[in-house]
């Protein structure tokens, strides 16, 4: 369309326009004289039709899983079942208020109780709290529990958390927030955390290790048993970053591997939609010794003279609450429905096919895009996205993929692979989609050789071309400067 730019809501605003009618006041007017009023709350003024069109047009400029292949490594962009959206909107769930008498929300509590049990079963943990709102908050929560655990033990010198260099940024960030010091561990030549480095680091100042398994290279840690043993032996705890649990559900239980605490990303493994960045949900599971430190309230099943029922309870030594109420309940509903639809076999089938798809891509692409740690991977793998001798970088390849209608993989992460492209196809993609991706990647590699400018100038077919990030960071226009007409 000519006139390409979509005006902002402020640019669309017209003084005096109104999009909505409210019920007429059916009570007497109360005096407002005791409060300080404002004359203009600063909102734009649009008709409902303006608003509907605005967001419809905006949405068409946004790429989701439902728009096409979205192999964004570490993020598990798989199909989000539509039935779960309908379920979460059932008024019985959506209209329930968090502070209602528990007697009136037994349906919600039953759901949460079951989900706690199921997650514990899937991860091999003794107990689960559904409070954290996302993976990062789950990490922070888990670390605070570790901290509380050592305080409880009277062991105050454990201030260090070991973190492999392949870890996600939230791991060290959470570590700092929880008052610990992050210690980076190198990776070995096969993409594992370096066992010798673990051995050296383990001492009585170590509160624990934060480990992602499969790690962010998509590789199962080959020495995981030994790593856990070493950390435990020095008195530390093992925190599992469960972001990659979608490769393990039904395949192996972190609890069985000796993990003490782990967060789940329900928005990854259990397919609650990513929502353009959130909301997600990051429950934490723990082994028996950390159970009483869980954030609460958690749901318990109770049977006494008043009969059997679900109740909200605070674990005895709880670190407290990390969200206002019980976590992102609406996401819990979706995850519950998802697990219930899959059963044990379905979850294993998911993991297996996530792994199948990722390995298929690896073997098909490795001749064109080098895979530094080229061994059987789990649900994702990392290759080098730069094309030697052409000046084409991973970023360029990514941008060119946009022209093929494909969302690029994660770029430049993990940090230990230069020019990294981290590719996670997920299990809900069928072979023709993977083949189309392979073809696109190979075509781009050819383009890079024949016409590098084409790739470096990409994308060409998107509503905007490459954006000036430097200017954005320098000028910091974070707020629409348009004065609404007649403001």
């Amino acid at each position, binding site marked *: 369309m000519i006139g390409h730019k979509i005006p902002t809501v402020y640019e669309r605003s017209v003084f005096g326009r109104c999009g909505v009618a409210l019920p007429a006041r059916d009570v007497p007017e109360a005096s407002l004289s005791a409060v300080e009023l404002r004359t203009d709350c600063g909102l734009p003024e649009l008709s409902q039709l303006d608003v509907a069109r605005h967001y419809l047009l905006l949405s068409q400029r946004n790429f989701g899983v439902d728009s096409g292949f979205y192999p964004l490594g570490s993020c598990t962009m798989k199909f989000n079942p539509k039935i779960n959206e309908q379920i979460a909107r059932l008024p019985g769930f959506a209209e329930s208020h968090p502070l209602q008498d528990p007697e009136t929300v037994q349906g919600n509590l039953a759901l949460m109780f079951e989900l706690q049990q199921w997650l514990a079963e899937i991860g091999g943990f003794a107990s689960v709290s559904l409070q954290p*709102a996302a993976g990062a908050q789950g990490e922070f929560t888990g670390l605070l529990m570790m901290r509380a655990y050592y305080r409880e033990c009277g062991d105050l010198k454990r201030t260090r958390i070991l973190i492999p260099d392949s870890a996600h940024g939230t791991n060290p960030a959470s570590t700092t927030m929880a008052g610990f010091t992050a210690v980076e561990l190198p990776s070995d030549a096969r993409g594992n955390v370096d066992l010798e480095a673990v051995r050296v680091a383990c001492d009585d100042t170590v509160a624990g290790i934060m480990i992602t398994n499969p790690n962010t290279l998509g590789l199962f840690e080959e020495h995981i048993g030994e790593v856990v043993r070493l950390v435990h032996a020095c008195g530390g705890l093992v925190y599992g970053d469960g972001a990659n649990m979608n490769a393990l559900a039904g395949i192996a239980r972190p609890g069985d591997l000796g993990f003490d605490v782990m967060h789940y990303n329900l928005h990854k493994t259990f397919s609650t939609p990513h929502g353009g960045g959130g909301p997600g949900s990051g429950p934490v599971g723990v082994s028996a010794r950390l159970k009483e430190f869980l954030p609460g309230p958690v749901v318990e099943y109770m049977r006494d003279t008043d009969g059997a029922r679900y109740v909200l309870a605070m674990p005895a030594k709880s670190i407290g609450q990390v969200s206002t109420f019980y976590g992102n309940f609406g996401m819990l509903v979706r995850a519950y429905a998802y697990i219930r639809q*899959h059963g044990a076999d379905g979850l294993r089938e998911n993991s297996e096919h996530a792994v199948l798809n990722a390995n298929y891509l690896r073997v098909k692409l490795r001749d064109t895009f080098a895979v530094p740690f080229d061994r059987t991977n789990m649900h994702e793998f990392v290759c080098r996205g730069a094309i030697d001798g052409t000046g084409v970088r991973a970023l360029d390849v990514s941008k060119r993929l946009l022209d093929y209608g494909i969302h690029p993989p994660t770029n430049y992460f993990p940090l230990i692979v230069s020019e990294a492209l981290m590719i996670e196809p997920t299990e809900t993609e069928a072979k023709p989609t993977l083949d189309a991706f392979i073809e696109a990647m190979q075509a781009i590699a050819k383009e890079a050789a024949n016409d590098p400018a084409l790739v470096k100038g990409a994308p060409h077919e998107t509503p905007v071309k490459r954006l000036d990030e430097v200017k954005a960071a320098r000028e910091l226009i*974070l707020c629409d400067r348009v004065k609404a007409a007649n403001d």
Partner: protein
Amino acid sequence: MSYVPHTEKERGEMLAAIGVARMEDLFADIPTQVRFPALKLPSAASELEIMCEMQVLAARNFAVDPALSFLGAGTYHHFRPALVDYVLARGEFSTSYTQYQAEVSQGMLQALFEYQSMICRLTDMEVGNASHYDGATALAEATLLALNVAAGKRNKIVLSPAVHPQYRAVVRTYLRGTHAATIAGDEDGAADLEQLKRLLDQNTAALVIQNPNFFGQCEPIEGLADAVHRAGALLIVLTDPISLGLFRPPGAYGADVVVADGQCLGIPPSFGGPHLGIFAARMAQVRRLSGHLVGETVDANGRRGYVLTLATREQHIRRARATSNICTNSALCALAAATYLSTMGKRGLKQVAELCFHKSHYAAVKIGKLKGFEINPQAPTKPFFKEFVVRLPATVGEFNAHLRKQHGIIGGYDLGRDDPHLKDCMLVAVTEVNTRASIDRLVAALGEVAK
């Protein structure tokens, strides 16, 4: 129901390409003793079955009629225009993730930029982030920001006892990772701002107030910011966004950080989440903010566009030295709020605020006339917005059971949950969804119990 699409034939071809014979061969790295656990989970249900089952589960909850609910305390039944869900249902939004690839994320980026803009104007602040998990975590992050500003030199957060108790709890949890602590006046909730001001000292990083406060009352904020700033601290204000349709905004009375829960802006209560953490501040703090920020820029052809900016604050760049660990946020709820705010507009939000004000006052006056009932016993002269405290002639528990069982009414919040002294005090919320008839029903029902 699994959503795995593979046919037998495709699976065979793919395994062959990989060079393994069976699916199991892909899992050789996994220690055999833990490999392929037999999970004890209910067996798989089809879409048809799961829907029936979930309907049964939802029906085990009491069927709340929002018009007959007077429970608020931070989560409210407000009118939600149908347009909001129309927008959220767009798969391009709901199935996307963070806007790492700006060229195909202009829709969400522009929507979030506009969200930031509307939040800034509504609060009268200079910069807002693209969302936090919920109001309590936004508040907790605000206190961390204040500590960060103080660069380790101040470790006291003066936290008004009239701040939502669950929010205070979350702040305390967040501060467990720091050397700081919260300090409050009189924990029974009667503390007034004068008392809090006296707690300010050179060790104080921030004063946190809620306005309207947890009890629904408007705080006398005149001169407060000055006092806080004189002490070298930040003023953090937790507010109710709906109230800002009508009331003087925190930016105008000197707040340094404004936080709020945005559930009231078009998001269902959903048993407490997902909600929306609103976070706005001064440009002076922009590099200390947590969460995503969307900035305006231009593309290679000079056309306007939007990108995530100042990523150097964030965990994926700055790692252990990031301003926060937040990654996944509450973007879709921010989109809901943006749709809500642009649909309601200037006049609509004002009208909602007015309806809340007048209806809650109507209810308060009516209840106040019942024998044995007292309105806002601890601060009878303070103005209030949409919530007020009622001292009942018996416990809240007794009243609420009767309201629900006899009248299908969800009564107000039992303040005795946080403070045993207040177990006869109910916090009653009245919004635009409560009709005069439903308020009259509440009043009559309260009168019945009293008899």
